C-alpha cells in the first residue's frame, strides 16, 4: 500500500504559500528599509541590512513553496486516507475512515481568494488527534468530506 501514486495538491496552493511567505518577509523588509533610511551603518554598508529580507525572500517566496508542494500529497483508498508531508522531516500518516470522529473543511481569507481549503480529520487518539490536509481545491475538499462522512455513516448503521 506504500507504492500507490500520491495525488498532488491544487497548484494554487503554491501561490498561497508564496503570498504567505511574502507576508513573513514584509516586516523584515520594512525593518531593513528603516535601518537604511536612518543610516545606522557607515557609508558603503548603509543598505547592508537588505541582505536579510533578500535571503528570506529567496527562501520563503522562491524555494520553500515549491519544495513543500512537491513533498506533499495524499491518497484515498476505499477505507483509509494517507497524508504525506515534510521537506526535511517526513511524516506519512494513515487514518482509517472508521476512526474519524468528525471532519472540518476550513478556509482562511487567502485560501478563499484562491479557492482552496484544508480538510481536517479528527480522531480519538492522543497522538494525531487531528490530521490536516491543506491545499485542496475547495470543491475537492468538500467532496472528500462527503465521501468520508458517508463511509462513517454507512459503517455505523
Amino acid at each position: 500500500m506504500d507504492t500507490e501514486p500520491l495525488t498532488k495538491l491544487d497548484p494554487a496552493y503554491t501561490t498561497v504559500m508564496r503570498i504567505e511567505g511574502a507576508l513573513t518577509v514584509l516586516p523584515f523588509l520594512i525593518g531593513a528599509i528603516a535601518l537604511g533610511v536612518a543610516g545606522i551603518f557607515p557609508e558603503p554598508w548603509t543598505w547592508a541590512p537588505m541582505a536579510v529580507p533578500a535571503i528570506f525572500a529567496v527562501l520563503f517566496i522562491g524555494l520553500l513553496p515549491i519544495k513543500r508542494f512537491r513533498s506533499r500529497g495524499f491518497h484515498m483508498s476505499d477505507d483509509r486516507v494517507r497524508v504525506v508531508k515534510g521537506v526535511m522531516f517526513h511524516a506519512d500518516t494513515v487514518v482509517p475512515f472508521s476512526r474519524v470522529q468528525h471532519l472540518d473543511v476550513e478556509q482562511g481569507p487567502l485560501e478563499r481568494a484562491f479557492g482552496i481549503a484544508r480538510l481536517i480529520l479528527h480522531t480519538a487518539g492522543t497522538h494525531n488527534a487531528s490530521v490536516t490536509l491543506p491545499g485542496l481545491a475547495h470543491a475537492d475538499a468538500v467532496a472528500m468530506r462527503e465521501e468520508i462522512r458517508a463511509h462513517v455513516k454507512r459503517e455505523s448503521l
Partner: protein
Amino acid sequence: MTAAAKIEVGEWRRVNKLTLVVNTLLTAGRALIPIGFALYSISDDGGATGIAALLFGLGGIALFALMIGGAWLSWYRMRYRIGENDVRLEQGIISRSARSVPYDRIQDVSLEQKLIPRILGLVEVKFETGAGGKDELTLSYVSEAEGERLRDTVREMAEGEGASPIDAAHRPLSASAPAAQQQGETLFAMGPKRLFIFGLFNFSLVVFAVLLGAMQQLEFLLPFDLWDYLSDWLRDGRIVEAGKAVSGYGLAAKIIAAIYALGVVIVVGMASGMVRTFVRDWEFRLDRTPKGFRRRRGLLTKTDVVMPVQRVQALVVKTGVIRRRFGWHGLSVISLAQDNGSSNHDIAPFATMAEIAPIAREAGFTLPDDSALWRRASSDYYFDRAILRAFFPATAALLAFVTGFVPVGLALAAVTMFIAAGEYFLWRFVRHALDPEQVISRRGWLAPSLRIANRVKLHSVEITQGPLARWRGYCTLRFGLAGGRLAFPGLGLEDAREMRSAALNSIAAVDFAKLPK
C-alpha cells in the same frame, strides 16, 4: 436529603449540608498562614497595643463569619440533577454556571474521601468524561450512602443509554444477580506486609527537598538568621576549626562518620518512601465486578474508582532496576479517564508476574510469552544515537588528556564508554512484536517496561523520518492511542511499513461505533 431517600430521576438536589463545615475548615486552613503572617508582622512592630489587638481579634471574627456566610451561599446556590439523559450541575453565587454531562460520555464514576470529609462521613463524587482533569463534573460533598447510590444510578443510566450489542450480551447477567455480583471477586489486594516490601523499594529523598524548601520559606521564623550564621561560620574560621576537629579524628572515625551520614540518608529516604506508600496504597484492593475493575485504596484520602473493562485502551507493565531482581512489577492501564492527574490507572502497583497475568487476562489482553515474534529496531539507529550522545564527552575527554588533566579525562572516557554500552544494550533489549490482536512494545534496559495495546483500539498510524533517519534508512512509527502514547523509534523502514499495514487492516475492519465501549 435524608440518607434513606432513593434517588429520583429528574429531581434537583443539593449536596450534603456538612459540606459547609468542610469548606469553612478548608478556607480557614488556607487563611491561617496569611493571618499568621499578619500577626507576626504586628508583634514584630513592637507596638501591639491593646486596641490594635482588639481590632485584630474583631477582624478575625468578622472574617470567619464571612467565610461561613460564603460557604453557606455557595452551598445554597449549588444543585444537581440526575436526569433522563444527563447529569447536571448548577453552581455559582453571582455568576452561575450550568454543566451537563450526557450519560454516554461518562467514562467512570469515582468516589474520593479526603481526611476532613472522611471524618464527617462525606465523599466527593467525580464523573469522568475523558476530557482530561479539569472539565469533569465534581459533586463535593455528599454522604457516603448517597455517593454509592449516585454511582449505581448513574452507571445504570449510562448503560441503558449507550447500549451497544456487546453491552447487551452482558446485561442479563448483571441484572439477574445484582446484589451478589455487586462485590465481585478480588483480583488483587495488598496487605501490610506487601506494602512494607513495596515501601522499601519506594526510596525517596523528597523529604530533603521539602526541608530545604521549607527552610527558605520559613527561615524568618527561626530565632537566628540562618544565612548570617552560616556566613559567620565561614568567615570567623569556625569551619577551619571544625575541619581541624574532623581531621583530628583519624581515618577510622572519618569512615564511620561518613557511613553514619550515608546511613541517615538511606534510613530517612526509606522511611519517607514507606510513609508515602502506606498513605497512598493502604488496603489496596482490586475487584472484578460486572461493571468493570473496582479499585479501593488510601489511608487518609480514600479513593474508590470503577473502570469499565471495555474502556481499557492499553496495558503498561513497569518495574524498577532493583525491584526487578526480586521479581516485582507494577501493572497500570491506559484509559481516557485520569487518575490523580496521571493518565494511567495503577491496578496492581506491586505484584509478581504470576499475579499480573490473570489481571491482564481479565482486561482482555494476553502477556507475550516465549512464542512472541520479537523484532528489534534498526542497529543503525542505536549506532547513530551512540555517536551523537557520546560526541561531547568523548571530545571533552580528548581535550582533558591533551591538556594534561588525566583523571578528568579518564572519568569522561568512562562516561563515554557507559553511553556507548547503554545504546548497545538498548538495541539488544528494546523490542516490539505484533500478534493477531495486539501491538507490543518493550522498552528500557535496566528497568524494562512493557506496553500492550489492542490493535482494534488504535486510531491512526504515522511514519516519520528526520533528515538523518532518511539518510540512514530508519524511521519512527507512531500509533494514535486514546489516552496515551505508543511510539517505536528507529525501526527499519520495511519493518515499520509491514507493522503499519497489518495494524491498519485490523483497525479498518472494525468501525469506531462498533468498538466495545
